[in-house]
């Protein structure tokens, strides 16, 4: 190499080294703190469809919305009944067809606009006007119209009596937005952060789809001051990646969702705690009452006798779910262990054989069971292998498993499947939302063909009940009849799980059946 060339190399090397050192030094001085003291860094595998509450019907968007917006009624931590939030109270007429709410005064949106009855009427009207494909407007199907009386009183006129209307007022469809900002007939785009204003504890300051949502304190928030200065939610496509980020300390906590194996591994990781609270997510096996062999009540009852609930909870979910003996999860008012009372808590092969023998059904009964691989989590494969193992081992059934991806599966359900897996996450945490969509012949979305005049009558009485005590009587009757007819076999109820590093406090206080992560209650030490 020529001397001149060598000198050139040396000079270049020197300049490069100096530049690198400068960058490194500057970086060391100005490196952003990995985790700011009072900023809660959360991770999730949920996705956000639309921040605008008129355009979403998914949990990921709802989690964002509860930080920005409020409802007339909300669920404070630990409460199972709707409590005044933007309203001071709501009451119904004698027929339960009109609900009037008195509104709080002096409340402001994060942009400074005052909150009045005009905002309430506007919010409900635009949900019904936009009729977003997310289907959120369906929650207001019973709403005839909204009228206001002065600036602080509003009345909801219903098409038919509904005792659970206060629960509807806590859902995403009833989120209150600023009538001066939100257009009547279209959604505010996710990118239009400045106009996604609400009265909630935070305001959204940055939203990068599929990547990050940044929340800072709402200076106009009328409630108790949040226990942190801001919340940053990072979105993950894979739970395994989120797990590594949590272990590394990139995020402080993760709420929804890991696989059962990952939860088990995280539970054993030093400095990380898996918090478990009452949950309201359920899984169940739908049986088509119009197709053989499940059109025979004896076959359905035999399946109810043999469902391996405890094995699924222990072996597949490592205790993160609990056996469920009714469509209404334990913890909600009105819950009864109807299936346990009728079929016992453990699988009973003798009784299953007896019911089939009595009905003259030849055993083993061939049965095709459908399940879907990803929509309900990776554990579904193990879950259904366990069900197949248990049913085949009994000698009562000869089960063939078949699966289809969700896009195909969700379109098919009872139109072609005889026995199939489904899960349910409630629109509102009340027994009614676990009964009407499944057993009411007008609302049954599973297409399993179940129609029962007796059940319809019970559910109609439940919806029109004047008092909670009266309503819960019908709730219990519906569960008993559902267990007897067994068009659906519920088998587990999931816990509400959140995982956090040791410096995050307040999580246990927000894990209740309402399934709301109240980030404003969390602090960081």
């Amino acid at each position, binding site marked *: 190499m020529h001397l001149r060339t060598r000198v050139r190399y040396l000079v270049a090397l020197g300049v490069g080294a100096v530049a690198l050192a400068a*960058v490194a030094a*500057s*970086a060391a*001085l*100005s*490196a*952003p703190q*990995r*985790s*700011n003291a009072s*900023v809660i*860094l959360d991770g999730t595998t949920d*996705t*956000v*469809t639309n921040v605008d509450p008129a*355009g979403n*019907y*998914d949990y990921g968007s709802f989690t964002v919305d509860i930080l920005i917006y409020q409802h007339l009624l909300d669920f404070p931590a630990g409460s199972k009944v709707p409590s005044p939030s933007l309203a001071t109270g709501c009451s119904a007429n004698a027929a339960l067809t009109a609900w009037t709410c008195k509104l709080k005064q002096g409340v402001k949106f994060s942009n400074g606009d005052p909150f009045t009855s005009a905002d309430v009427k506007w919010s409900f009207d635009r949900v019904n006007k936009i*009729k977003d*494909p*997310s*289907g959120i407007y*369906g929650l207001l199907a019973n709403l005839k119209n909204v009228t206001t009386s002065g600036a602080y009183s509003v009345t909801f006129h219903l098409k038919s009596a509904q005792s659970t209307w206060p629960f509807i007022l806590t859902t995403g469809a009833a989120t209150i937005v600023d009538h001066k900002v939100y257009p009547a007939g279209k*959604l505010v785009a*996710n*990118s239009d952060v400045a106009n996604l204003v609400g009265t909630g504890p935070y305001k959204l300051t*940055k939203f*990068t*789809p*599929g*990547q*990050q949502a*940044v929340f800072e304190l709402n200076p106009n928030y009328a409630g108790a001051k949040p226990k942190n200065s801001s919340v*940053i939610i*990072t979105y*993950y*496509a*894979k739970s395994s*990646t*989120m797990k*590594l*980020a949590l272990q*590394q300390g*990139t*995020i402080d906590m993760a709420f929804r969702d890991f696989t059962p194996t990952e939860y088990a591994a995280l539970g054993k990781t030093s400095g990380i705690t898996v918090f478990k609270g009452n949950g309201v997510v359920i899984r169940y096996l739908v049986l088509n009452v119009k197709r053989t062999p499940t059109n025979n009540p004896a076959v359905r009852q035999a399946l109810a006798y043999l469902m391996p609930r405890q094995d699924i909870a222990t072996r597949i979910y490592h205790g993160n779910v609990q056996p469920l003996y009714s469509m209404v999860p334990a913890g909600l008012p009105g819950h009864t262990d109807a299936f346990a009372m009728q079929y016992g808590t453990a699988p009973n092969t003798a009784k299953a054989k007896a019911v089939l023998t009595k009905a003259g059904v030849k055993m083993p009964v061939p049965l095709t069971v459908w399940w879907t691989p990803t929509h309900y989590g990776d554990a579904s494969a193990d879950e259904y292998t366990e069900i197949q193992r248990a049913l085949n081992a009994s000698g009562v059934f000869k089960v063939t498993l078949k699966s289809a*991806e*969700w*896009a*195909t*599966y*969700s*379109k*098919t*359900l009872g*139109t072609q499947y005889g026995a199939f897996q*489904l*899960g*349910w996450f409630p629109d509102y945490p009340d027994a009614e939302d676990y009964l009407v969509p499944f057993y009411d012949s007008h*609302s049954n*979305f599973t297409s399993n063909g179940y129609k029962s005049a007796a059940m319809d009558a019970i559910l109609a009485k439940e919806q029109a009940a004047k008092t909670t005590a009266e309503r819960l009587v019908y709730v219990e009757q519906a569960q008993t009849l559902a267990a007897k007819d067994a068009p659906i076999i519920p088998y587990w109820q999931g816990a509400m799980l959140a995982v956090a590093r040791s410096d995050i406090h307040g999580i246990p206080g927000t894990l209740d059946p309402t399934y709301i992560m109240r980030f404003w209650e969390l602090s960081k030490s």
Partner: protein
Amino acid sequence: MGAQGPSLKRYALTRIALVFPMVFILLTLVFLLMRVAPGNPVSAALGGHVPPAVINQISRRLGYDKPVYVQYGDYLWDVARGNFGTTISDRRSVGSIILVNGAATLELTFFAMLVALVVGLLVGLVCGRFRDSPIDAGGRLFGIVVYATPVFFLGLLAQLVFGVWLNWLPTSDQASPITLALMKTHTNILFIDAIIDGNWGALWDVVQHLILPATTLGIVYGGVFIRLIRVNVIRTLKEDYIEAARARGINERSVVYRHAFKNALVPVITVVGLQLALLLGGAILTETEFNWPGIGHELYVYLQNRDYAAVQGIVVVFGLVVVLASIVIDFAAAFIDPRVRY
């Protein structure tokens, strides 16, 4: 040159003209594939939660009940006007996905290609220079192993070793949450945005986050370059002009690095173009594994939601990038070597 000019021009025009039928076939295939299976975005989002009548009602409103040929015609008409549409699940314009998330993919693939070239050139050159030695055997083995390893598996290993066990590097995302929250975006390529703002702390954070995904993706594709460059170096070292250089007394180091190596690089240009398609395919897996918010990551999410508009738009853009890159490479090859005409 006078004789070559019209020929190259004709060749260029032919290649450009071929883009249109290629894109048309791509559009048609993607459109049909998305509609072969039952179900649509509405049933994917609402199935198992609302009655079928509601799903059908919404599907009708969005035009999913129209005959496929009508939907196809509408789609082609929109694309012809440069409108790739809006995603169904989250109402983003496909154009913004391509701009924002495409920038992240560009950042990742650029640095991955850099890694692939550096690894390929260095190892390939050394292997070719020391043919049949233990170094050569080791280099070849390395090339085969990394190329045969699935990119997500290599990514997982890298995350565990360098992220969790050694805790040297972050295992996911484009930057740490707070950096992302505070950074201003100009080009959506964070590496450049940090430089524009003179935000060296953010730049360092971004670089740290780039290392694992870019190296993982780059090393896998470096395997191809290793073998290619090794073979070319060996072949070039046997050429007459190399023997002549040696006979003139030029030292071996200069012969290898100044004469043989330069000529061995020419075929690499073509392969770089071909590798781009594979690199984009690998980027989907890498981005998902590292939660890198690129276009492949988005494709993964939208595919799950059966979001027709998003998937069609993203796949077509992927296709266009590959087609355009192959054209550029063909032009470059034809320009360098006048014998090249396809």
